[in-house]
């Protein structure tokens, strides 16, 4: 733990120093950060449907907070992270967000976990002018237009979770380059924003790569028996099956499809990217391909220490969500460092923090991290394959253009 903490601090310090992190306006002005607390909040789905992802984000974030606090904090200021559960319920997410925001002393928020909740919470944060950093939402209209269909960009909403708009097309591109499929079928949950967003992206992308989408089979995310849907999908004998759902659905579809004799390729979205799903799919999922924001054995400088510290603290491997949660704290800590916080004017501090976030440029387990002009993520995409026994193999990595 010690050496990992030291390692991280060194990496952090180096990165910050290298990227001009030690201030643009000559030192931390009037207020010293010593002994102060940077108050952060998080709204995560620790229970409910999103409960597969929320706890990972929390673990990653908690780990980062612990490491930073144990190695001097942010210029001497400690970080405190107040995490609340929204039970994967949109209304509750909004209520919890409001309570947190109006308690009055939080400088920034993380979350919420699900895209479904984000559409309620992000506009709320925007209207209260508090920076919010999404750590797992990858649907469309998260950034910059959190108030879609209005095109006015949201100034306070950011995300460090690679969007499906990047991940899915990259995935399709890599696959078609080597296999040249002709036909595909899309399986999508039409009452789940994440899944239907992914579905839309698939529909908009396949044409470019010469795939003819012969059928779109929509179902309710509450469906238990997928056999009739799979039967329908396989009628046209597609080369590829796109599955954009999350939770337990991808594994079920893959298993059923293999049972019914499908030998083609599974291509998916972010829903594929946790060990839980790979394990559920088991042998049926072997070779299922998706674009991911993170890969366990990636060679970025701060990743190895992150993985080691995580394994030490939690006795298990981190996943993409943990990495994104961890990175989020790094991002906020870096921005806090450069923001010349007063620790007395909360509204002013939130605004300064927001400004500083836009110019973040640090090393994280996700790789070198910067926000795009639309507060979105610009990073390497890892194309991974399920290995049939609960893990993933790396197929390719695509660097940001």
């Amino acid at each position, binding site marked *: 733990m010690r050496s990992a903490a030291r390692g991280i601090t060194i990496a952090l310090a180096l990165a910050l120093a290298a990227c001009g992190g030690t201030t643009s306006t000559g030192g931390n002005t009037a207020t010293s950060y010593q002994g102060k607390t940077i108050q952060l909040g998080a709204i995560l789905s620790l*229970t*409910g*449907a999103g*409960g*597969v992802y929320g706890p990972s984000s929390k673990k990653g974030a908690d780990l980062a907070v612990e490491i930073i606090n144990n190695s001097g904090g942010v210029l001497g200021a400690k970080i405190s992270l107040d995490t609340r559960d929204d039970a*994967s319920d949109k209304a509750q997410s909004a209520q919890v967000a409001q309570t947190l925001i109006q308690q009055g002393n939080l400088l920034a928020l993380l979350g919420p976990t699900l895209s479904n909740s984000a559409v309620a919470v992000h506009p709320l944060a925007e209207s209260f002018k508090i920076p919010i950093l999404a750590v797992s939402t990858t649907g469309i209209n998260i950034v910059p237009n959190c108030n879609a269909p209005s095109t006015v960009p949201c100034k306070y909403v950011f995300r460090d979770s690679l969007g499906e708009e990047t991940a899915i097309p990259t995935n399709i591109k890599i696959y078609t380059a080597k296999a040249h499929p002709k036909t595909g079928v899309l399986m999508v949950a*039409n009452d789940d924003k994440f899944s239907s967003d992914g579905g839309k992206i698939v529909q908009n992308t396949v044409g470019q790569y010469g795939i003819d989408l012969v059928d779109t*089979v*929509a*179902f*309710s995310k*509450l*469906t*238990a*028996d997928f*056999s*009739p*849907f799979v*039967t*329908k999908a396989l009628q046209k004998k597609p080369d590829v099956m796109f599955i954009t759902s999350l*939770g*337990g659905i991808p594994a*079920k579809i893959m*298993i059923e499809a293999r*049972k*019914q*004799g499908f030998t083609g390729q599974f291509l998916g979205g972010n829903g594929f990217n946790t060990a839980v799903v790979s394990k*559920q799919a*088991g042998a049926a999922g072997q070779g299922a391909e998706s674009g991911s924001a993170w890969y366990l054995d990636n060679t970025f400088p701060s990743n190895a220490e992150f993985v080691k510290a995580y394994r030490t603290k939690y006795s298990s491997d981190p996943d993409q969500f943990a990495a994104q949660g961890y990175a989020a704290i790094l991002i906020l800590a870096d921005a806090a460092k450069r923001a010349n916080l007063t620790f007395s004017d909360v509204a002013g501090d939130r605004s300064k923090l927001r400004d500083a976030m836009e110019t973040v440029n640090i090393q994280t387990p996700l790789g070198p991290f910067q926000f795009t002009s639309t507060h979105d993520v610009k990073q390497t995409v890892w194309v991974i394959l399920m290995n049939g026994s609960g893990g993933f193999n790396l197929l390719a990595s695509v660097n940001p253009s």
Partner: protein
Amino acid sequence: MTQQVLNAIFIGSIYALFAVGYTLVFGVLDVLNLAHSAVFMLGAVITYSLVALHGMPFLPAAVIAVLVCGLLGLLIEFVALRPLRRRNAPPISALISTIGLALIFVAIVEQATPGTLFSWLWQDGANSVRFPAGTVPNPTYHIAGLTIEGTKLGILITSVVLMLVLGYVIRYTQVGRALRAVAENRRAATLLGINVDRVFASTLFLSSALGGLAGILFGLAISDISPYIGRDQVELKGLAVIVLGGMGSIPGAVVGGYLLGLIEVFALVRFGSNVEAGVAFAALFLVLVLRPQGLFGATLRERL
């Protein structure tokens, strides 16, 4: 298309088994037991618990689970139903108290994670799990271009056998006769010396045992066990089935179950998957409006 019909028959068996329990209680006690779907879920959860968490082989685990569900039926009777009957409360009260029990059952499982009060029963909280591979042998047969799974075939056979057995019991045994008498006319049955309370208790035991079994078969066939399988999958569809078949009629529940399976699959094939989910309810609505007694129900008696 034939594959789809097969799909329909398999899911229909589960609907039918579930609905039989539902309709049994309605026919005999005049009560819609909305805790039935929670018992369905607990059947699967308990079996899973015994198999995956405590290492028991499937068959004994299933038998125990079915018995426990039967006992839960007794719990429902004694806690939620009997006190209301003593007070001559209107039937809607029973509806509501069974809703309350269902809420409790589901919440208990939903909150059970490692380290909590009920972690001996369930550790996956709100998540969905499946029986460990190899719990039951499950060969897949490919005949004439169709895919037939061993488990699904087994479920079909089990359901049919059970329904035949139930039919026999109801029709030809003492217990069955008492049941039918009470269903027909409670007061007359009392006068005939039938212990109505005991009949109610047995009905609930039987119905819940069947419901629990349906849950186990569901978990096996669909590979999905979670706190919500009762509520999301069968509760409302079960309603549609017994309305279709006629409330209080067992053959109605059976036919209704298969019918719903077929209607759903047909809607999926013909109109696309978007419509499939709403079909059960559209059917329910139509039946209630056009022929409230369903296919086999007696002409509507005043139920409130």
